[in-house]
Protein backbone atom coordinates (compact mmCIF):
# COMPACT_ATOMS: atom_id res chain seq x y z
CA UNK A 1 0.00 0.00 0.00
CA UNK A 2 1.14 3.49 -0.84
CA UNK A 3 -0.12 6.81 -2.17
CA UNK A 4 -0.55 7.00 -5.94
CA UNK A 5 0.06 10.37 -7.58
CA UNK A 6 -1.39 10.68 -11.10
CA UNK A 7 -0.21 13.41 -13.46
CA UNK A 8 -2.39 14.81 -16.27
CA UNK A 9 -1.67 16.84 -19.39
CA UNK A 10 1.13 19.40 -18.82
CA UNK A 11 1.87 17.85 -15.43
CA UNK A 12 2.39 14.44 -17.04
CA UNK A 13 4.57 16.04 -19.71
CA UNK A 14 6.67 17.73 -17.02
CA UNK A 15 6.93 14.60 -14.85
CA UNK A 16 7.65 12.35 -17.80
CA UNK A 17 5.51 9.64 -16.21
CA UNK A 18 1.79 8.99 -15.79
CA UNK A 19 1.97 8.18 -12.11
CA UNK A 20 4.32 7.61 -9.24
CA UNK A 21 3.87 6.21 -5.73
CA UNK A 22 5.01 7.59 -2.38
CA UNK A 23 4.68 6.70 1.28
CA UNK A 24 1.79 8.31 3.10
CA UNK A 25 2.43 11.88 4.25
CA UNK A 26 0.95 15.34 3.73
CA UNK A 27 -0.07 16.22 0.18
CA UNK A 28 2.43 19.09 0.30
CA UNK A 29 5.31 16.78 1.26
CA UNK A 30 4.35 14.26 -1.41
CA UNK A 31 4.29 16.99 -4.06
CA UNK A 32 7.63 18.34 -2.87
CA UNK A 33 9.11 14.85 -3.27
CA UNK A 34 7.58 14.58 -6.76
CA UNK A 35 9.08 17.94 -7.77
CA UNK A 36 12.47 16.83 -6.46
CA UNK A 37 12.31 13.70 -8.60
CA UNK A 38 10.99 15.52 -11.69
CA UNK A 39 12.37 19.08 -11.63
CA UNK A 40 10.20 20.39 -14.49
CA UNK A 41 7.15 19.82 -12.29
CA UNK A 42 8.29 22.79 -10.20
CA UNK A 43 6.98 25.20 -12.84
CA UNK A 44 3.68 23.42 -13.33
CA UNK A 45 2.60 22.57 -9.79
CA UNK A 46 1.96 26.17 -8.66
CA UNK A 47 -0.79 26.39 -11.33
CA UNK A 48 -2.36 23.04 -10.54
CA UNK A 49 -5.43 21.96 -8.61
CA UNK A 50 -5.69 18.60 -6.85
CA UNK A 51 -8.13 15.80 -6.35
CA UNK A 52 -7.83 13.39 -3.45
CA UNK A 53 -9.76 10.24 -4.38
CA UNK A 54 -11.74 12.30 -6.93
CA UNK A 55 -12.68 15.04 -4.44
CA UNK A 56 -11.23 18.54 -4.70
CA UNK A 57 -8.37 19.06 -2.24
CA UNK A 58 -7.54 22.63 -1.28
CA UNK A 59 -5.67 22.16 2.00
CA UNK A 60 -2.37 20.56 1.07
CA UNK A 61 -1.46 19.97 4.74
CA UNK A 62 -3.95 17.08 4.75
CA UNK A 63 -2.28 13.68 5.18
CA UNK A 64 -2.85 11.38 2.22
CA UNK A 65 -3.50 7.83 3.44
CA UNK A 66 -2.07 4.67 1.97
CA UNK A 67 -4.29 3.43 -0.83
CA UNK A 68 -5.42 6.92 -1.78
CA UNK A 69 -4.91 8.59 -5.14
CA UNK A 70 -3.79 12.19 -5.52
CA UNK A 71 -4.48 13.66 -8.98
CA UNK A 72 -2.47 16.63 -10.26
CA UNK A 73 -4.61 18.77 -12.61
CA UNK A 74 -3.13 21.66 -14.62
CA UNK A 75 -5.41 24.60 -15.50
CA UNK A 76 -8.36 23.33 -17.53
CA UNK A 77 -8.44 24.15 -21.24
CA UNK A 78 -11.58 22.55 -22.59
CA UNK A 79 -13.81 23.99 -25.25
Amino acid at each position, binding site marked *: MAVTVRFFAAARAAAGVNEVTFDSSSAMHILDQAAALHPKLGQVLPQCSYLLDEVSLRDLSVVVSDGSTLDVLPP*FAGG
Partner: protein
Amino acid sequence: MSNVSGAFVTTDLISVSDLAALVRSNTAGAVVTFSGDVRDNDHGREVLSLSYEAHPSAQALLEKVANQIAGEYDVLSVAVAHRHGDIAIGEAALIAAVSAKHRKAAFDACTALVDEVKAQIPIWKHQVFADGTDEWVNCA
Protein backbone atom coordinates in the same frame (compact mmCIF):
# COMPACT_ATOMS: atom_id res chain seq x y z
CA MET B 1 -39.66 21.72 -16.55
CA SER B 2 -36.02 21.79 -17.54
CA ASN B 3 -34.07 18.70 -18.34
CA VAL B 4 -30.76 17.50 -19.70
CA SER B 5 -31.17 15.66 -23.00
CA GLY B 6 -27.56 14.57 -23.12
CA ALA B 7 -24.04 15.16 -21.79
CA PHE B 8 -21.25 13.34 -23.56
CA VAL B 9 -17.49 13.14 -23.17
CA THR B 10 -16.54 11.15 -26.23
CA THR B 11 -13.82 10.44 -28.77
CA ASP B 12 -16.47 10.28 -31.54
CA LEU B 13 -17.27 13.08 -33.96
CA ILE B 14 -19.87 15.44 -32.49
CA SER B 15 -22.35 17.46 -34.56
CA VAL B 16 -24.45 20.58 -34.07
CA SER B 17 -27.43 19.03 -35.84
CA ASP B 18 -27.41 15.97 -33.55
CA LEU B 19 -27.39 18.08 -30.40
CA ALA B 20 -29.95 20.55 -31.76
CA ALA B 21 -32.22 17.58 -32.55
CA LEU B 22 -31.85 16.32 -28.98
CA VAL B 23 -33.13 19.56 -27.42
CA ARG B 24 -35.79 20.43 -30.01
CA SER B 25 -39.49 20.06 -29.20
CA ASN B 26 -42.84 21.43 -30.34
CA THR B 27 -43.06 23.63 -27.25
CA ALA B 28 -39.64 25.21 -27.83
CA GLY B 29 -39.61 28.46 -29.77
CA ALA B 30 -35.85 28.94 -29.72
CA VAL B 31 -32.85 26.68 -30.07
CA VAL B 32 -29.36 28.16 -29.64
CA THR B 33 -26.24 26.15 -30.37
CA PHE B 34 -22.54 26.76 -29.86
CA SER B 35 -19.80 24.89 -31.64
CA GLY B 36 -16.22 25.33 -30.52
CA ASP B 37 -14.17 24.26 -33.51
CA VAL B 38 -10.48 23.50 -33.86
CA ARG B 39 -8.74 26.44 -35.56
CA ASP B 40 -5.74 26.27 -37.84
CA ASN B 41 -4.15 29.17 -35.94
CA ASP B 42 -3.73 30.41 -32.39
CA HIS B 43 -2.25 33.77 -31.42
CA GLY B 44 -0.96 34.11 -34.98
CA ARG B 45 0.81 30.75 -35.07
CA GLU B 46 -0.19 27.99 -37.47
CA VAL B 47 -1.63 24.94 -35.70
CA LEU B 48 -0.79 21.59 -37.31
CA SER B 49 -2.63 19.25 -35.01
CA LEU B 50 -4.50 19.22 -31.78
CA SER B 51 -5.68 16.78 -29.15
CA TYR B 52 -7.66 16.96 -25.95
CA GLU B 53 -7.10 14.91 -22.83
CA ALA B 54 -9.99 14.27 -20.43
CA HIS B 55 -9.77 13.37 -16.76
CA PRO B 56 -11.82 10.26 -15.81
CA SER B 57 -14.22 12.52 -13.86
CA ALA B 58 -15.00 14.69 -16.91
CA GLN B 59 -18.17 12.81 -17.89
CA ALA B 60 -19.73 13.08 -14.43
CA LEU B 61 -18.77 16.74 -14.12
CA LEU B 62 -20.20 17.56 -17.55
CA GLU B 63 -23.53 16.03 -16.47
CA LYS B 64 -23.39 18.11 -13.30
CA VAL B 65 -22.76 21.36 -15.20
CA ALA B 66 -25.56 20.60 -17.67
CA ASN B 67 -27.98 19.99 -14.79
CA GLN B 68 -26.84 23.18 -13.07
CA ILE B 69 -27.56 25.29 -16.18
CA ALA B 70 -30.88 23.53 -16.82
CA GLY B 71 -31.90 24.44 -13.28
CA GLU B 72 -30.71 28.05 -13.31
CA TYR B 73 -32.31 29.24 -16.55
CA ASP B 74 -35.85 29.21 -17.90
CA VAL B 75 -35.04 26.66 -20.57
CA LEU B 76 -36.68 23.46 -21.78
CA SER B 77 -33.70 21.29 -22.56
CA VAL B 78 -29.90 21.31 -22.52
CA ALA B 79 -27.40 19.08 -24.30
CA VAL B 80 -23.62 19.26 -24.37
CA ALA B 81 -20.79 17.19 -25.81
CA HIS B 82 -17.02 17.50 -25.41
CA ARG B 83 -14.79 15.48 -27.66
CA HIS B 84 -11.31 14.29 -26.67
CA GLY B 85 -8.42 12.55 -28.37
CA ASP B 86 -7.08 13.81 -31.70
CA ILE B 87 -9.36 16.30 -33.47
CA ALA B 88 -8.82 17.48 -37.04
CA ILE B 89 -8.71 21.18 -37.94
CA GLY B 90 -12.26 22.46 -38.47
CA GLU B 91 -13.92 19.74 -36.41
CA ALA B 92 -15.83 20.54 -33.24
CA ALA B 93 -14.31 20.02 -29.80
CA LEU B 94 -17.29 21.31 -27.80
CA ILE B 95 -20.95 21.59 -28.76
CA ALA B 96 -23.71 23.00 -26.58
CA ALA B 97 -27.40 23.24 -27.45
CA VAL B 98 -30.24 24.80 -25.48
CA SER B 99 -33.95 25.04 -26.21
CA ALA B 100 -36.35 27.45 -24.54
CA LYS B 101 -39.71 29.02 -25.10
CA HIS B 102 -38.06 32.37 -25.69
CA ARG B 103 -34.76 33.32 -27.23
CA LYS B 104 -33.18 35.39 -24.46
CA ALA B 105 -33.15 32.46 -22.03
CA ALA B 106 -31.75 30.19 -24.75
CA PHE B 107 -28.90 32.60 -25.59
CA ASP B 108 -28.10 33.30 -21.93
CA ALA B 109 -28.15 29.63 -20.93
CA CYS B 110 -26.01 28.53 -23.89
CA THR B 111 -23.44 31.26 -23.16
CA ALA B 112 -23.33 30.23 -19.48
CA LEU B 113 -23.14 26.55 -20.34
CA VAL B 114 -20.04 27.10 -22.49
CA ASP B 115 -18.45 29.34 -19.83
CA GLU B 116 -19.06 26.74 -17.10
CA VAL B 117 -17.77 23.85 -19.22
CA LYS B 118 -14.55 25.77 -19.81
CA ALA B 119 -14.23 26.64 -16.11
CA GLN B 120 -15.27 23.38 -14.48
CA ILE B 121 -14.50 20.42 -16.72
CA PRO B 122 -11.03 18.82 -16.36
CA ILE B 123 -10.10 18.66 -20.02
CA TRP B 124 -6.84 19.87 -21.52
CA LYS B 125 -5.86 20.99 -24.99
CA HIS B 126 -2.51 20.17 -26.56
CA GLN B 127 -1.47 22.03 -29.71
CA VAL B 128 1.34 21.22 -32.13
CA PHE B 129 2.50 24.18 -34.22
CA ALA B 130 3.90 24.31 -37.74
CA ASP B 131 7.21 25.59 -36.33
CA GLY B 132 7.70 22.29 -34.51
CA THR B 133 6.86 23.53 -31.03
CA ASP B 134 3.92 22.36 -28.97
CA GLU B 135 2.04 23.56 -25.93
CA TRP B 136 -0.49 22.60 -23.32
CA VAL B 137 -2.94 25.51 -23.55
CA ASN B 138 -3.34 27.71 -20.42
CA CYS B 139 -0.21 26.23 -18.86
CA ALA B 140 2.66 28.68 -19.12
